[in-house]
Every structure is written in C-alpha cells, then in structure tokens.
C-alpha cells in the first residue's frame, strides 16, 4: 500500500518538476541513489616520487626556511615586541598568520583528529593509541572511557617537505642575506 502511495506521489512530482524528473530518470538509469557530488576517481598507478638526493641538511631547517620565505615566520618571532603597540603587532601578525597557515595546509594538510565540537561528550575506544588520545581528570576503570572533549587534536595527513639540493655551506641557512644592486645610470 505504501509503495502504491509513493508511486502516485512520484508520478505527480515528476510531472510538475523538471529537477525531480531529472533525478528520477537518473535513478532509474543507474539503479542506485546518486551521490550529490561523485568523488573524482584518481588513476590507480601513482606517479613515482622523485628520490631526494643524499640529505645534506635536516628537514627541520628546510621547514623553517619555508616558513620564513613564505610567511616571514622567523623574522616575526625573532623581533622583540617591547616597543610596539598591539595594533602595530596585529598589522604584521595578520599576514604572517595567513601565510603560515597556507604553508602548513600545503605541506601537512592538517585536520582535526575528531570532528566533534569542544565540550561535547566523546568516547575513547578500547585499545586506543596512547599517542592519539591524552586523558586527564579522573581516569579510573577500563576503556571505553567517556568524557568531555577538551581539544579535538590535530593530525598531519601528509608530509611533503621541499627537497634541499644546495651546498653543505648553505645547509644551515634559514634565510639568505639579501643585497640589492642599484641600476647603473
């Protein structure tokens, strides 16, 4: 009986709405409920990552150099804040903040570990990874634990740092000396 009712409803909706008609046609053709946006299919064979040469310097320095180059991170942190007003610091901080975020997103694709809101009730499963969860407060008994979410955590879903091909002498350089030549006139 219920199916009959659905069929009648569908008949009228298809008749009056172009969008519904399109959706139903698609449903009939494909036999499955269409997803709102189909996930792009990536080729199965992955491109080979170029092998980095022998590491002449630590990747940590490369990261620092990237943050400095693209976001002026080291300049910002190394500058004493004593003589500046909050507004002055804020003016520079906005740009540094925005550009640092861009670098972190591109190199590490950082996402929240849990997508619940802070303060919501969460469950820590049995056999959880101690690196993934940090428990505080009254920890007693056995998992699964229930508690209040204090921080959703962060996770790097990728780690693609630039490769360094420079000289040994340059390995410790976070930002090169900049010298501007005047045009001869």
């Amino acid at each position: 009986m219920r199916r009959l009712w659905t069929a009648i409803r569908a008949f009228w909706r298809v008749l009056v709405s172009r969008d519904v008609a399109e959706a139903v046609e698609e449903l009939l053709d494909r036999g499955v409920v269409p997803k709102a946006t189909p996930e792009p299919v990536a080729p199965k064979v992955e491109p080979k990552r170029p092998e980095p040469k022998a590491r002449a310097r630590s990747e940590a320095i490369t990261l620092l150099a990237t943050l400095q180059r693209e976001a002026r991170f080291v300049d910002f942190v190394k500058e004493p804040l004593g003589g500046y007003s909050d507004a002055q610091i804020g003016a520079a901080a906005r740009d540094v903040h925005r550009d640092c975020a861009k670098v972190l997103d591109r190199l590490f694709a950082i996402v929240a570990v849990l997508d619940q809101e802070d303060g919501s009730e969460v469950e820590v499963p049995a056999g959880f990874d101690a690196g993934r969860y940090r428990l505080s407060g009254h920890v007693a008994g056995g998992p699964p634990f229930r508690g209040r979410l204090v921080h959703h955590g962060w996770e790097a879903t990728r780690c693609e740092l630039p490769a360094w091909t420079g000289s040994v002498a340059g390995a410790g350089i976070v930002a090169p000396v900049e010298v501007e030549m005047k045009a001869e006139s």
Partner: protein
Amino acid sequence: MAKWVLGIDLGTTNSVLAYAPLEEEQPAIGLLPVPQLVAAGTVEARSMLPSFLYLASPHETGGGAFDLPWASGRDSAVGELARGKGSEVPDRTVGGAKSWLAHSRVDRHEAILPWNAPAEVPKVSPVTASRRYLEHLIGAWDAAFPEDPAREQAVVLTVPASFDASARELTRQAALAAGLPEDLVLLEEPQAAVYAWLAETGDRWRRHLKLGDKLLVCDVGGGTTDLTLVGVAQEEGDLVLERIAVGNHLLVGGDNMDLALAHHVAGLFAHKGVSLDPWQSVALWHSCRAAKEALLSPGGPKKHSIAVLGRGSRLIGKTVSIEVDRQGVADLLVDGFFPRAALADRPERRRASGFREIGLPFEADTAITRHVAAFLGSHDDGSGPARPTYVLFNGGVFKAEVLRQRLLELLAGWFPEGEPPRPLVAAPDLDHAVARGAAYYGWSKRRGGVRIRGGTARAYYVGIETAGLAVPGAARPLRPLCVVPIGMEEGTEAAVPSEEIGLVVGESAQFRFFSSSVRKQDRPGDLLERVSEDELSETDSMETMLPADEAIEEGCVPVRFHAKITELGMLELWCAGTRSAGRWKLEFSVRQQGQGE
C-alpha cells in the same frame, strides 16, 4: 602504443599537467605533482607550474642551486622561484610568453624576452620560453613515469580559442621542440573547460542540455579573457555539441584586478603620508592578490586591513598597514571589471596615437562585461545577439561568487524574455579544470565519447593585389580572398576557386594573410570588396618559394590555392599549379616584422 593521455594547460601565468590511463573504462584523471625550484637549492612538488623563466647570472648557479631531480648544472629556472624573481630581478625574468606568441607585430622566434632587458642579459624568444615550460613538465612526467616517456603518450595541449593559425603553429613548434609527439593535438581552452564539465557530469549532460541550448564559456584567467559559444545540435537523433563562435584575443584578466586594487590602496597610503618604494609596491600587489578573495566574498567585517610587511629583518617595526572599506573596494573591482553594461554597449577603444610603442597590446577597456556584450552582438543569429541559455565559468577570477552573480544578473537583464541563463561550473577546482578537460578529451577521443565539433574557429584570407590601372606611387589595392571558411572541419581539404595567380620561379612569393572570427557568410573563393578592420585582422604573412631547379620551363607558374585542415586541426595552405602537377606549401613567415596597422 600510448598508455596514457596527457592534458597540458600551457597557461599565461600557470601551467598544469593532468593525465588519465587510456585503457580504463572510466576516465580516472590525476594531476601530476610538478617538482620545481621554490628557492635556490630547494625543490618542492606543486600541482601548478608558474609560467615564468628566470635566467640566472653565472654567479648564482654554483653548488647545484638550480638543480632539479632530473637535471643538474642548470643556469635557469622555471616555476615558483622564477615567478618570485619577477619582482626581485625583473630584468632576468620572462613572463607572459604566451601573450607574446599571439602578438604578430614582433618576431616570435627572435630572442626578445625579457622585454626591454639590458644588453648583457641573455634573452630568449617567446617560442623558446614556451618550449622551456613544456620541457619542465615533460621532465617532471618522465621522472614520475620512467617506463612511459611523454614522447610516446597521447598528448593534448590547450591553446586560447582566440589564437589564430599562426599562434597555433608557433605553439606546436614549441611543443615539438620540447619533445612532445608529432601527433600532438591542440584543443581550445574554453572547449577544454566544457570537457572538464562533461568529465564531472558524465552521461548526464544529455539531461542538463537540450536541443538549441547555447553555452557561453567565459574563461577569465590571470592575463587573458577567452569567450566561446557552444551550441547543442542534433545528429541522427542524438544530441551533439558544436562550437559556434569564439571571441577575439583579449589581454585583460585577474592580474589587472590585482593591479587596480594595489593602485587604489597605494593611493590610500599616499593620502596618509606613506609613500611606498618599488619593493613595497610589489609587495602590496601580492598582498592585494591575497586580499582580493577575502574582499570579494560576501559577509565579513566592514573594514579590511591590508599590510605591507617591513622588508628587512625588522618586520613589525617597518610594517605599514591601512584599513580599506570592504564595500568600496569590492565595488571598485566589480564595477571596474564587470560594470552594469547594456547589451548594446561596446568596449571603448582609445584612438592609437601616431606612434605606438611595441609591446603587448593590452586592452584599452578592462570592462569584461562590455567585451561579452560585443561578443554576443557580433554573433547575431538573425534574430538579434546570440542568447546563451547557460554560462560556463572558468578561470581563477570566478572563484569570487559576486563576479559570477554579476554576469548572470546582466545576462538575465539583456535577455528578459524566457528563462534567465543558468550557471555551470567547469569543475569544482577552477585552477586545474582546463588541464583535466584536456585529459578527458584525449581519453574520450580514444573511447569514442562525446566531442565538440566546430572545425576552424576563424575564416582565413589571402591578400590579392587587384588588377587595374596602376597609379604611380600608390600600391595596388589589396583585396582579401577567402581561402578557409569558418567551421572547416578537421581532415578536409578544398581547392579555392579563383583567378590564376602567377608565382615567379626562384623567388620567394609572399602573401599578406588575414583572419576573421565573425564573417560566417564567406565561402572559399569569395573576393571581398570593402571590409572593416573590426571584422578582419591581419596576422603573419605567408610565403613559399618555387625552387628554380624544378622541371619548369616558364619563369612564372600559374597556381590556385588549396586549403587543408589536418586531422590534428592544423591549417595548411598550398599553391597548386593549374597547368602542371606541382604543389608548394605556404609557410608562416613569422620572422618577418608584422605589417603596419
């Protein structure tokens, strides 16, 4: 046998390579991460390769500073590092090579870039610069797929629809010199955007579009705007896509918007008594690029702060910033580039003064909406300007929803009767859509999927000196003879009926060459009387040479033209002897300086 199809978007500001395996049943399109120098001695893989070339001074290249994973000992760099150098060392940085390719007033094989650079800087030609960008992409591909080198794959390279036969030929030469295969296919960028949409939509496109629908493809990139009209026709009961018209080459794009904003903000700084030095001005341009999206997105605070960071190590102390009125700036950009124009409006054309500096012919009118109105107006289908039923947006500029809305709103007003044009978005990711579309096209070509038909986007004409009384001191009037009509299909050829033309043996014969994207009525053999400059534009002349050693007895051979569009969409023009069997191919003489206005 090719295993992959490579779709290459050789852009004015960024290049992208997308690829798909040919044997898959479903198109599985991936983007090639392109390792590139982001700073001296630092290589990072990114999905976009900025189309810039930095020609290093010999003192900078020590210690492998410019090495790539697949090449060492280099003295130049392509990509992110080169883009950055554009502001630091402009004399040694080549940018915008693609816009130069379409510019027939200069010799595109001559080493002229960086434009206006001092004498000691090594220079390259626009063709060489384009070759270098492609070589970088090929190097990245071959390193990632060492078993399947790029020269053995199926390759689709995109060009602006507005590129004429000469600019396409130059692009092809650059591609072959870079090591791409001979059977490389050139695809028009707006069509690639449509293919990107088809790749997303799959077979469902036949539900979205109906017979008689017209898609306006509006592709606004960093430096150029490209317009195309695609229609939905019927063939044996099945819907097919047909390219109806393409617009002219417009040198206006997102970069102009960034500059306009930077100019406005620099004015605000000046008002506050802060004058910016050249370095700060460039930094401001970059800040404005970053701020543009925030300023154009709906919502957000009324005031937005734009800062120019201090250059030296005293970052905070030297930073200058200013509050800009969000609404005011958004209006400046939206009304400046997408003003509320009427359908009858036309772009303003500034009268060229007697002496015009050579250099890129940037548009005098930056109002994209007026260019759209002119485009629709010039493709009158008999019942008024062409009326699109859908608008397909492409190009990074259209990430700003307010700009998409403005264009849709105007179109709805221009055509008040019936349903207003509906928007389509090429792909969720506008930066890579053209390359993805090119890869999809290559895949569907093998698989027999949907194709956009259309043939040549332009009609071509050879300038013929008219017979008649010679007036001393005056050149004989030149009349354009149509040799290729608009819409001539790939893989066809045709003899051009005309009077006989005499070619002198042993001498180079040169013909002035013209094209038109609007004169649909002309058929091969038509000799035009009077044509307005708006309709016909001159491109590189064509030349051929009859070797003296052939078995020709007379000194002059009568010929007629014979036009051919190859399977790969390249135009070939031949001179065929009317009384002998000889056939001589005409070549573009791009080394020749372009003719006058």
